[in-house]
């Protein structure tokens, strides 16, 4: 049986120095962090989630063509991730518990936390004949974690599972634990934003958060790091102040502002315009295909208002 070593695995990956599109200083810090055997591991838990943020993470690509494979090999010691890990059952859980004991890990939560029925409508794993709920797992791991990252709007704020009169009592990770969390909101979370946040933590770089726990850099700066308007509408290429074009009255009008069709861009903070799928700066986004912004990065998402009527905020 051939066991593929880290070195031989790397041969399959596109060799590249600019692993994360970081500046040389940051890259050096990251290399140091990874060369350090005591660098934190990453534990990624799924709660009341759709796995969409994990799928989104797999969509990561940089301007130099680096993909998530490089991130996994070079940058992140991802010891527990239910969708990606080879292991299953007891051996998987044993590794999780070993790292939990060390306290040397970053906790990533995907999905809000159901609290109804004692949390037992979401079982994360079984151990020692018992069933560990997501609520219990998050509480136990959050208490020990070096830092907590919420991947997506559900873990950050509750999201769609919390809306309406959902019976599962979903709350955000911050509400459950009372601990500060770095909220990478979005439905799903943008892969670049997630990797960015984890790398900041692994390199010990301070992250400035806004009132909703979101990194200011991801919402108020452009790809090059220059200051940019926070609201999508203020940087939208369809902003009527910029185009002088009429507002779209129906779907399928390329280039027209979508405000009358329900666009929440005037109320939504994010830098979605920089890219969703594809190479940053050249990729696609919702408004690019004539779809109104649904405000999925905001704490109020989805809210009771219809998506396709003008949004009053």
């Amino acid at each position, binding site marked *: 049986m051939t066991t593929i070593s880290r070195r031989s695995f790397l041969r399959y990956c596109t060799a590249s120095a600019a692993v994360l599109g970081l500046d040389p200083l940051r890259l050096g810090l990251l290399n140091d962090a990874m060369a350090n055997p005591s660098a934190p591991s990453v534990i990624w838990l799924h709660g009341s989630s759709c796995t969409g943020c994990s799928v989104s993470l797999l969509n990561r690509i940089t301007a130099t063509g680096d993909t998530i494979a490089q991130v996994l090999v070079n940058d992140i010691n991802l010891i527990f991730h239910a969708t990606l890990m080879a292991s299953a059952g007891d051996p998987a859980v044993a590794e999780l518990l070993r790292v939990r004991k060390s306290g040397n890990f970053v906790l990533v939560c995907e999905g809000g936390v159901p609290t109804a029925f004692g949390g037992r409508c979401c079982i994360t794993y079984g151990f020692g004949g018992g069933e560990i709920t997501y609520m219990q797992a998050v509480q136990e791991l959050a208490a020990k974690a070096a830092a907590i990252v919420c991947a997506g709007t559900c873990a950050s704020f509750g999201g769609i599972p919390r809306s309406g009169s959902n019976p599962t009592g979903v709350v955000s990770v911050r509400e459950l634990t009372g601990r500060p969390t770095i909220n990478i909101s979005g439905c799903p979370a943008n892969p670049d934003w997630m990797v960015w946040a984890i790398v900041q933590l692994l390199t010990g770089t301070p992250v400035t958060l806004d009132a909703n726990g979101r990194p200011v850099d991801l919402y108020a700066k452009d790809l090059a790091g220059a200051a940019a308007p926070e609201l999508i509408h203020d940087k939208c290429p369809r902003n009527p102040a910029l185009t002088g074009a009429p507002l779209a009255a*129906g779907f399928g009008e390329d280039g027209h502002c979508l405000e009358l069709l329900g666009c929440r861009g005037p109320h939504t903070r994010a830098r979605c315009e920089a890219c969703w799928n594809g190479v940053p700066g050249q990729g696609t986004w919702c408004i690019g295909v004539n779809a109104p912004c649904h405000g999925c990065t905001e704490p109020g998402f989805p809210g009771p208002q*219809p998506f396709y009527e003008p949004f009053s905020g």
Partner: protein
Amino acid sequence: MPVITAAIDPVTRIEGHLKVEVDVDTVDGVQQVVDARSVGTLFRGFEIVLQGRDPRDAPIITSRICGVCPTAHSMAAALLLDSVYGTNPPEASRLLRNLVHGACFLESDILHFYLLCLPDYIRGPSMAPWLPGLELGRRLDPAAESRLVAGYLKAIDLRRKCHEMGAIYGGKLPHTPGFIAGGFTAVSSSANKTAFGSLLAEILEFIERTYIPDVELLGSLYGEYFRIGRGPGNLLSFGVFEDGAGGHLLARGRTVNGTASPLPVDVAQITEQVTHSWYDDATNDLAPAGGSTVPLSPKPDAYSWLKAPRYGGAVYECGPLSRMAVAGHYRRGISVMDRHLARAHEALRIAQAMQGWLTALPTGTGAFDPFDPGMIANVDTLGLTEAPRGALGHWIHMDGTAIGRYQVITPTCWNCSPRDTAGQPGAMEAALIGTPVARADHPVEVLRVVHSFDPCLDCATHVMRPGEEARVIPLWRPPAARAGRGRA
């Protein structure tokens, strides 16, 4: 020798939360699974979120049921809304919906075989998240393993490109906002057609030259898996990719225990049974159009949050193998390896069809049929399609111009259901029974059967009927109460 009960919890490399319990015993000299229980361990309550909302929101909200097959939910909801409002979306809408849904099919197929299934057969690099790995038998020679690992790494990039391709018209994936009541948002141009076509050509080449040969290689090395994991033998497909003439690229139909020609699907034959699920027996055996979800736990003999959908009382499997068999494109058999092989060949068919849809896609014209959301054409209606992993149905009952009730039956409900009222095991449970297991403390064979169904427990989480109080108190019976569950 005593029966050994082994539990795999969590079952990883699926979407969502699943536990599988198997009883292992030696029968005729072979240690094998003699009983199996598939336990859905997540309940999310999505349908109640929809109650009272504007129905036009359904494609956006239901997409979030599953981040792995989001376009399947958007498609089902959009088809349903075409009926609610009586709209007749232009041809461009059909083509755009098919192209974006097709992109997600291919993404899901590549993800499933390489990232979710292959670690059951090969070892990854000696680091997390591939370590600790599974105890795998020595089967692959270094050359074969190197080839499959190379395919795995290429697959990481190719599955991403599937989403990049779909997002050209979908805006973002997962969770595209492109599917709307009355059509699709995007407008095609010759530039974005070229970009889409270029990615599609690359993906098609990967399917032909890497994916299909890799599945064939694995099948040649693990030939016994053409005889393992048969299941109920009944196959169901709702049909997917509208062909513009009232039919589908992959036809709607069902086969019963190998019938050569497919039988029609009568939706009225579908009911959901809850005898072994944590729901009130008063809601047993209801049709989804009049469905009701009343959680109830503890409950004797119940062991899953999944209901048990049945067609005319019978157990059906759904998924790529079902679609290919119903459409008459795959007749080799039903097994773990047949599921993988049928899926790979289906991916090729879909990618080839996508080339035709792309060519036919008109440029510069909208794909939207305007309508008045205050005018409801059908108060009770449905949308049927296929997710990559199988048959998906959405049912709606309108309350004025808002959603009164919304019901979803996902493919994983069909495949991973618990036993029904008659005691028939679900499709995956049935497929597990008889699976040889070398080491009961390390039942990798069980994982191989489970993964061949591509379970998606985010989807499968059945949802509650609006307006009814949940009555669930503690959920899990103590392990001791389960220990006595018998042999098959």
